[in-house]
């Protein structure tokens, strides 16, 4: 199993969610994060538009079977891309074990997305 962590624009969240569901991901988790770095995003306060070195993003965390990594990543990239700086990143890492708390089931069976 792999864990896919995607950092996306909050504004693209609805589209990404729909794309993931279309790609048969039944559940995923997300939370809000801040990106800290170089000047990037235009904000407006009291008549001034300015660049901030903090940007508000959303982190999605999805654990999938190995064979589903590519289509999941592709679904995210397609839905989250605007082509502008700041579209975000996706990181994939390995998950060794997975449990479904309700049943105690172990391994890929505990994930929803079926083998395809």
């Amino acid at each position: 199993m792999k864990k896919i962590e995607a950092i996306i624009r909050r504004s693209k969240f609805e589209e990404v969610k729909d794309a993931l569901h279309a790609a048969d991901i039944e559940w995923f988790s997300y939370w809000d994060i801040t990106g800290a770095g170089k000047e990037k995003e235009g904000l407006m306060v009291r008549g001034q538009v300015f660049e901030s070195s903090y940007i508000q993003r959303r982190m999605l965390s999805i654990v999938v079977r190995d064979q589903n990594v590519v289509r999941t990543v592709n679904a995210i990239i397609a839905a989250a891309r605007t082509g502008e700086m700041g579209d975000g990143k996706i990181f994939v890492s390995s998950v060794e074990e997975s449990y479904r708390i309700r049943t105690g089931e172990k391994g890929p069976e505990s994930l929803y997305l079926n083998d395809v």
Partner: protein
Amino acid sequence: MILSVMTAGAQGTAVASTVPHIDFGNTAWMLVATALVMLMTIPGLALFYGGLVRRKNVLNILMQCLIATSVISIEWVVCGYSMTFGSSKGILAPFIGGFDWAFLKGIKINDVSPYFISQPTARIPHLLYVMYQCMFAVITPALIIGAFAERIKFKGYLLFIILWSLFVYNPVAHWMWSSDGWLLKMGAVDFAGGIVVHVNAGIAALITAVMLGKRKDYRNHAIPPHNIPFVVIGTALLWFGWFGFNAGSALAADGLSANAFLVTHLAAATAAFTWVMLDWIIGKKPTVVGICTGAVAGLATITPAAGFVDVAGTLFISVASSLVCFFMVAIVKPRLGYDDSLDAFGVHGIGGLLGSLATGLLATPVIQAAYSGAFYGNHKLFWTQLFAVFVTVVYSGVITFVLFKIVEKTVGVRANTKQEAMGLDETMHSENAYTDID
């Protein structure tokens, strides 16, 4: 509000006087009442509605309330007051005022208000009456916001409320509250705005909700509020401000005003309690959003009746209010499937309608001797009320439809899919309500 123009007058010499004059006590109360009605819109209604929407749209709601306060106040001074309470010549007189008082031209600072209810001589300054009515003109279109929350274009909204104030609010208020108004002359009564404010805005809410269509992700139930404490603060400030709205509509600090205060508070308390009981029985849990909604329903329902009913009438009206509004919001709306996002129609429209009709039944001569309802032997009042409500529903419905179509064809009304998904705050105002960065 019942008013009669009668005699104008200069101010001065109080008590023991039969000449209309500016009374300091009544003026003191009405200065406060005016401020209280403003507080109802900002931040009262703004927080009530703003707490109910999702985080990404809260600023848009606050902005709509703020800009309504700003723009309609300007419109009111420019021409609204004159169109509503001014006189026009000939055949138009019962239907709309003229422009004699445009920019409040000719109203001097020590003029007494031409309008009064129970105190024919101890009156308030005319300019204060202008301001008091201004706050009603502001809150009425702001109530409609609940219907199209989370999906309207800001520019379209702004144009719509200006047109609506000019072509719906001003005429309807003239009919009912101007001394020339045809509904008033026919005998219809509306103490503090059941017809003019609540039915009027409520119908406009229904029409615009249907015309605008559902939110993309609306699935026939409310979306969980993003900040319920804000809903509570908003409700409490609405309740507080409503004392200015209803008890202020007596235009004096006297017994009538005290009774209006009493029935307003009792109605809010009783309707709130009734709603919680329905929640508890039907939904299994007593909810905070429920008690708040009940309180507002009770307040809206008692509004037209506040100057005419006693304790018994109030208990009847307020229990009925929550029963009917709960039924509309929890059962009828999801069945019919229109997306009146924050129940502007289901609570304000239905509440105002119910209260206006109930006034025709329950008005008792012990409050104002001149007004009795059907239960006190005067059946005519009920039919007059029914007629006035009917006329308002039709007029407000039709003109709202026409105006909304015009706005749709010109600047547009519906936010596009991307704006709706990203939230109106970021896309229309370049702002986020809450920023965590340090």
